[in-house]
């Protein structure tokens, strides 16, 4: 199952690197994330490690508040971003991590002494400080010291802000002519504070809150959280409910992947392709609306089942329409993939190796595009995936083109899964008698699912109250973003949009609770003085 209770392996803080290295030797080669916990006097750290073939280990250590723990970057290269996150949220430092001086998710103006996820931090008070008149939170990234790259280099702020471009995040590109010397990501523009908010709402309301982490993989957030809570409750959803969940999850995957394919067209300046793909996608939006009643935030999952049944007539129409969609989609994608121009623009762009993908703990299609069949639906089947017949689509080249191939292949697999679900929907009543309003007994559990962008991980801890004690979300984009920054180096400005979007970034997911537009700041980021200096040079 894609969910389970947590059995901790204990360690002393100073032994952490050694313990991690031992676990890695035992096959736990994938660092899912690092969860921080407020344990009263100390901060608990849980390192969640996974085996590529299945199985999760949880290594726990307690560190004094405001203290220091050794960094794990020697064992897992990708660990630094999770350490930065814990540093932001709990004020803990990691010795040996070179990025401890910077914020990852929080704005630079965030008060130093009140890490948001400590229990005694009051969001209202923080809010007052953050939004006090006169506080300026938008600060430019470090653009001084450009000369260390080369005398001709200029810093180009790359702040996505286009609507068709889902959302904004900021990269400062150091370019020389058209060539990129370095890319400095700054995330956190979409930080809203969802993990904190989840601790203050009841379990039922949390489902709706967590769905709104992201509008594209919305259902997977609700589902993953629900799976973890059901594990804590020792509850199992009826089989029909599991099938309906799977149905909506796969429809969501199709919608997400087709949206991405359209955006690939948009990003390469091929707007006609964007329009064509999005037109085809409307069929799927209709189906999602038909099944769940909503187009974007499906809100169909609830603790112990689903919120509404999908009756025979609706199922029949789903089956009919998905077949029509399959025809349209295959024809369209066949046309696109055979365009010389498309191949030239995507093939070999943003290439990365399987080594990089593994070392940076990437997930989802990004990982599968280099031939690593890491898919939670197979590794730890959840919902109805154990009963369904599907194969994991992999690529072999690790560039934009193979990612397009992988995602297109996954859409076709998802279509077949939807057909199977329509044909084999088990009978029964999937809707619980009343919504879950109770208390969850103390404990901790995790759940992971294969969201459209890759492995989505939720950790839920209960202290026996109406609302969870801690909810931790590790979204696929956070795991993949460093790969994008890595792949940007040496590319040209023409390819930036494609390379950044190759991981199908979902920044509101990543910043969980964060969402912002860098577009605004984009042309103010260089200071007046910088302009004058550059102008003289030119």
């Amino acid at each position, binding site marked *: 199952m894609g969910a389970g209770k947590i059995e901790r392996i204990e360690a002393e803080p100073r032994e952490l690197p050694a313990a991690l290295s031992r676990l890695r030797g035992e096959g736990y080669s994938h660092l899912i994330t690092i969860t921080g916990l407020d344990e009263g006097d100390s901060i608990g750290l849980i390192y969640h490690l996974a085996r590529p073939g299945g199985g999760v280990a949880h290594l726990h250590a307690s560190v004094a508040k405001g203290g220091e723990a050794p960094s794990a970057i020697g064992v897992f290269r990708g660990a630094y971003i999770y350490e930065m996150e814990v540093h932001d949220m709990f004020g803990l430092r990691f010795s040996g991590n070179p990025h401890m001086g910077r914020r990852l998710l929080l704005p630079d103006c965030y008060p130093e002494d009140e890490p948001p996820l400590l229990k005694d931090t009051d969001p209202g008070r923080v809010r007052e400080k953050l939004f006090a008149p006169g506080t300026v939170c938008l600060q430019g990234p470090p653009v001084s010291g450009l000369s260390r790259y080369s005398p001709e280099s200029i810093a*180009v702020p790359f702040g996505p802000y286009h609507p068709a471009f889902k959302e904004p995040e900021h990269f400062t590109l150091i370019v020389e002519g058209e060539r990129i010397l370095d890319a400095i990501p700054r995330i956190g523009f979409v930080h809203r504070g969802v993990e904190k908010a989840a601790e203050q709402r009841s379990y039922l309301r949390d489902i709706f809150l967590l769905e709104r982490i992201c509008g594209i993989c919305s259902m997977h957030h609700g589902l993953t959280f629900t799976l973890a809570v059901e594990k804590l409750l020792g509850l199992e959803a009826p089989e029909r409910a599991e099938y309906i969940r799977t149905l909506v999850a796969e429809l969501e995957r199709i919608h997400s992947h087709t949206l991405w394919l359209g955006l690939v067209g948009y990003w390469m300046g091929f707007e006609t392709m964007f329009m064509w793909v999005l037109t085809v996608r409307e069929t799927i939006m209709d189906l999602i609306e038909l099944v769940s009643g909503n187009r974007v935030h499906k809100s169909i999952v609830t603790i112990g089942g689903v919120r509404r049944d999908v009756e025979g007539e609706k199922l029949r129409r789903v089956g009919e329409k998905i077949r029509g969609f399959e025809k349209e989609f295959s024809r369209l994608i066949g046309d696109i993939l055979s365009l010389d121009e498309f191949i030239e623009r995507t093939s070999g762009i943003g290439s990365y190796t399987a080594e990089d993908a593994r070392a940076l703990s990437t997930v989802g299609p990004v990982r599968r595009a280099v031939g690593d069949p890491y898919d939670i639906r197979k590794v730890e089947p959840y919902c109805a995936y154990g009963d369904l017949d599907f194969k994991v689509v992999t690529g072999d080249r690790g560039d934009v083109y193979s990612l397009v191939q992988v995602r297109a292949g996954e859409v076709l697999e998802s279509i077949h899964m939807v057909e199977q679900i329509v044909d084999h929907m088990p009978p029964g009543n999937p809707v619980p008698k009343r919504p879950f309003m109770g208390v969850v007994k103390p404990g901790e559990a995790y759940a992971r699912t294969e969201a459209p962008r890759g492995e989505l991980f939720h950790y839920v801890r209960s202290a026996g109250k109406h609302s969870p004690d801690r909810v931790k979300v590790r979204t696929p984009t956070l795991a993949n973003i460093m790969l994008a920054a890595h792949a940007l180096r040496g590319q040209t400005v023409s390819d930036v949009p494609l390379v950044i979007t190759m991981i199908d970034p979902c920044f509101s997911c990543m910043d969980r609770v964060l969402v912002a537009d860098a577009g605004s700041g984009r042309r103010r980021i260089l200071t007046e003085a910088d*302009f004058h200096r550059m102008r003289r040079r030119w």
Partner: protein
Amino acid sequence: MDGATAVFAALVFPGLLFTFLMGLFFEYVERKLVARVQRRIGPLYAGPGGVLQPLYDFVKLLVKEELPPEGVDRLYYWLAPLLAAAAPAYGMAFIPVSSFRLSIDTPYDYVFTLFLFSFAVFATAAAGYAVYSPYTAMGVGRLVVQYSVYEAIFASTLALASLQTGATSFRGLIEYQALHGPLALYQPLGLAAAVVALLAKLEKTPFDLPHAKQEIVAGWMTEYSGRGLAFLHIAKDMSAVWGSALIVAVYLGGPLGPLYGALGGLVDAAWFVAKMVAVYAAVAFISSLAGRVRVRGLAEKIWGALLPLVFVQFLVVVALRWLV
């Protein structure tokens, strides 16, 4: 040709006013055509079938507030958009749109066009340079690179036309085509190369690098608003008219067609406009089905693919001269 006729040619027909109105119409044709390719409807409610949409856009920009960013070079900021719009309007004044000779007619006007070309690019580059932001800087840089790449092709195709006809004026070109039929029959490769170069000149996909919005916002136009933007927009539309008019005049026989000269030149003008619209529709259609090239691929695409074409065409032209 007296002064009054020249002024009329420059300001009314086929110069400024005609070019302006055609420019608006061209934008409408393009938007509708692209929309249809993308399975949309396009502008619909502005005038019959939305035909007034570009005019509404222009008028709106004229009456909007103008917000020049701090630290602009005032002179260039005001002057450049006007120059950019003036270049194609002036260029059109030389084009023989109708047998009713209203265009400015000089012995070397065809050669003069080449100068106007570079002048138009200079005006655009100046517009970008007037404001200094990273996007305008990159936009202007790309513009100049692109210009240097396509201009070689455009100039050599025009030279080939001159080589075959021995003409240095539009009058000479049209007279040659009246005798021997449209030049497109002899120089199909040259025509193809010229159309691709036109795509690049008009900054249409796949050659819209200088204002690639996904990469560098609006390129050299990023910081313009209000009137300046209105003129830059109309300059683009008018360049489209000018560019198509050149191709029509050089390769497609200009105003020649059945009933040439009837109704005091009205029929010729109708022929010319119809051919122009056809050329531009073809350009817009190609553009709507293409993605943007990468900067590195630009020279490769244009030179690598087109220079051989132009060279073969050159051999054909030389052979023709030798034979005839």
